């Protein structure tokens, strides 16, 4: 079942990116999507009940807007640090505990952290995530866990779990 969902997503992406509905194009796209599904289908979603629940899409749209606002804020923050003559940076690598378990939710969280204020995900070891931070604001682990991942974690939990 989940292979079918994966196949349809790839086929729609192919049809949009080539942007023509001729028969030969659809046949080539189906062949490519079938090959990709057979090779990489085992890495896709874990359960297919979650795909048809509408509240997950609602939270995804809410999350998209919050994420966009955080990205724009992040860019102005980094731009300020670049322009300032004295380079106000205090970099360091911090350890943040994770609460979510599934693989795709963790991937989403790591990508979100990479795109927001001065943080880059380095590695995930067990239940902890290592983050390089351009300005370490405090030494208290609870404070920086809230600042790095707390904003996204509650929405991602509602979307994927």
């Amino acid at each position: 079942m989940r292979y079918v969902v994966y196949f349809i997503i790839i086929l729609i992406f192919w049809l949009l990116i080539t942007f023509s509905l001729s028969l030969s194009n659809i046949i080539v796209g189906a062949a490519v999507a079938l090959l990709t599904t057979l090779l990489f289908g085992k890495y896709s979603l874990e359960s297919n009940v979650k795909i048809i629940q509408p509240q997950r899409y609602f939270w995804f749209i809410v999350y998209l807007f919050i994420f966009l606002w955080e990205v724009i804020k992040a860019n102005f923050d980094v731009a300020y640090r670049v322009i300032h003559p004295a380079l106000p940076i205090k970099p360091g690598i911090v350890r943040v505990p994770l609460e979510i378990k599934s693989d795709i939710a963790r991937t989403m969280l790591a990508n979100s952290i990479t795109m927001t204020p001065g943080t880059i995900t380095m590695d995930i070891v067990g239940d902890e995530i290592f983050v390089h931070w351009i300005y370490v604001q405090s030494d208290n682990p609870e404070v920086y866990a809230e600042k790095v991942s707390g904003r996204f974690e509650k929405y991602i939990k509602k979307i994927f779990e």
Partner: protein
Amino acid sequence: MISSIIITIGILFNLLGCLGLIRFPDVYNRLQSATKCVTLGTCSILLGVLIHYGFVEIGVKALLSIPLLFFSATVGAHALVKGSYKAGIKLGDKSVKDDYKEEVR
């Protein structure tokens, strides 16, 4: 007209990102500034193409390449950061904290 304004904003962010690539002291901070600013700048250039043409073939292709660019840039930055730490490149002089050290060796 709106598309020109959005493309100008994107090029401004690209400029700041490349300035950070020159100015910051070590490889991790360079990656911070370059990845975020240059990715957002290029995404807004592609959005300018979409606004200039509307939802015809070229605009839809530009819109589709935004998530592609987004995921490839983040995964590439993650791989580069981990690789350069494994290769033994030290953090810069201003660094205050390193929790990853006892995890690697």
